[in-house]
């Protein structure tokens, strides 16, 4: 905790640590540039991670716990969209250069709304009651682990375990010089992620509700004393985090070359998501965005020499290295 973490460091140690950080940053940039094609893919992966990581970090900011159910909320979003695309919306694929059709543009907002409702429901039914009982933070965290498994069980009960696919049709990649090849879907994914990130930024900085959220995140007691209805802020935060998770889930599916879904897809992304949150500085949405890019690029560039299945382990390793030098993450506050 805060006493043990703030150990005294001599100036020499601080200097050595700064040099090491600079060296690591240079190594990272050189590696990314040497595998520029993979690094570009990493940016696209990073934009999916960013949407999930920002939600985790927003919830952490106001509730002080890392929501383990977030990955499965993403899964839920993907399956809601799957249901809509297959059973409700008209069949259409191959919109412009993309593998999916226009119905996806309807499915994304509906998924966002559905997962936002799920997140608010989780808070009202479970987390608020635990809060009122003044339950330990980690008790709340275990409850989120229980919810994660329950959500996955629910998805499996309805859609069963086999891999499913969004309706899609094959599409050519765009080829650029220097061996860069870009799947059109990836451009859509990062475009959508960017739009949502800008919308969130405007919400946090320009609206009263957003400012209340940031104030509560900074200091909940002070916010309450200043007349902010912190319970309402919590519901808003859950709603926004849920909406972002829903969008992230759908985008994760079309990010995949074969547009596949499986019930474990969200939970499996949990390690990279947490790594992004921690690397950026837990509780800081801009940090989560930066962390997601760093983790996404590291994961993709690593495939130049490591097996692709090791990507989550790479994300974890990057997180440990960053924590060694910056225990509060890159943009972490003093807390």
């Amino acid at each position: 905790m805060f006493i043990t973490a703030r150990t005294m460091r001599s100036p020499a140690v601080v200097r050595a640590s700064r040099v090491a950080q600079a060296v690591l940053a240079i190594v990272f940039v050189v590696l990314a540039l040497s595998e520029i094609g993979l690094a570009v893919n990493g940016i696209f992966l990073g934009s999916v991670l960013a949407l999930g990581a920002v939600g985790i970090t927003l919830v952490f900011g106001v509730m002080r716990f890392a929501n383990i159910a977030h990955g499965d909320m993403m899964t839920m979003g993907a399956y809601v969209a799957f249901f809509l695309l297959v059973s409700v919306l008209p069949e259409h694929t191959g919109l412009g250069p993309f593998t999916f059709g226009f119905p996806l543009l309807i499915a994304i907002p509906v998924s966002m709304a559905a997962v936002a409702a799920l997140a608010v429901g989780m808070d009202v039914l479970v987390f608020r009651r635990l809060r009122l009982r003044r339950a330990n933070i980690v008790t709340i965290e275990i409850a989120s682990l229980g919810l994660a498994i329950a959500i996955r069980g629910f998805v499996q009960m309805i859609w069963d375990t086999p891999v499913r696919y969004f309706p899609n049709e094959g599409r050519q990649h765009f080829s650029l010089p220097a061996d860069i090849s870009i799947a059109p879907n990836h451009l859509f994914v990062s475009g959508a992620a960017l739009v949502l990130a800008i919308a969130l930024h405007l919400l946090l900085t320009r609206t009263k509700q957003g400012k209340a959220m940031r104030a509560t995140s900074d200091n909940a007691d002070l916010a309450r004393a200043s007349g902010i209805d912190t319970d309402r802020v919590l519901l808003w935060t859950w709603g926004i985090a849920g909406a972002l998770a829903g969008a992230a889930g759908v985008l994760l599916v079309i990010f995949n070359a074969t547009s596949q879904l499986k019930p474990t897809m969200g939970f499996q992304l949990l390690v990279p998501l947490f790594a992004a949150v921690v690397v950026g500085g837990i509780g800081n949405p801009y940090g989560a965005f930066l962390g997601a890019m760093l983790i996404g690029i590291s994961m993709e560039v690593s495939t130049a020499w490591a097996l692709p299945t090791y990507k989550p382990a790479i994300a974890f390793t990057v997180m440990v290295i960053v924590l060694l030098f910056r225990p509060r993450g890159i943009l972490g506050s003093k807390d």
Partner: protein
Amino acid sequence: MLEFLTGFAILVGVYSVFTLGLNVHWGYTGLFNIGVAGFFALGAYTASLLVIRPPQSDQVDDYLFAGDLANRLDALPVIGALDLWFVVALAGAALVAAMVALVIGTITIRLRGDYLAIATLGIAESVRLVFLNERWLSNGSKGLYTIPRVFDGIVSPQDYDRVYLVVVLVVFALMFAVVRALVHSPWGRVLRAIREDEVTAEASGKHVFRFKLQAFVLGAVIMGIGGALYAFDLRAISPSAFTPLLGTFIIWAMLVVGGSGRLYSPVVGALIVWGIWSGSQFLPDPLGSPHVRYFSVGALVVLVLMYAPDGITPEVLRIRDRWLARWRPRRVAANE
């Protein structure tokens, strides 16, 4: 039926060991470890790799690494009524789990509790990925098999389960006794002080980091031994057994249902949760499917946290006391 019950009892015993380790982490010290599966897998693979020779080379081409303890130590007489290689395998599993816990604990225990959670989750996934991908070491997704029986040659294969149940119970009883003694010692008191209020413990001159690290390593050792016990029960292991769900969540469910920080909760929790988990397969089809099982165990954990935060053990103890009062009224009266 008897065979099913024996197999069930062995797994309850093995899961009680994991839950005992998790109780040391979370129940007594407040360390939030969601990577039980990592220590579980490390224990299981270390013990197996120490003991067996590679399977026939025409079946598995690039499986290079394995110890040969089972054959080397087989020549020695059974010492203290237990195969020597079995003891060495358990010790090896404990040692590897301890070393990994020491490294990961040194880096993350100083940080906030959430970081430890994320780090343990990451370690568990990384360990699983290594065993899944490094085929020379662990035969990839096919896993390790032909793991020998304890007391092979002395006990006939039909009786193995019953004998192994005794082995598991003895090992569990030993570790239970150690944990019980430690928890009641001054060392255990410091752990509980840290769990309740770290700052106060630090202010009373206790080296919080050192105590937490010791507890983290102790719990990991217990989990590693549990992994070894698991390997010698199933005698075939593969990475699919160590997913976050089967390797971590179900153990958390046991601790939460049993009630964390109580001595007997690992047994109570393992019995109830494993009973629900493996009993539900006999239910008629829509209820017996594994998906309903995931959902219901997840929901069970949330409900217990909300409505019975101390778990079910206090209730069980109350029922026990009521029965004791019926048979031996004086003794209970004296306790009160």
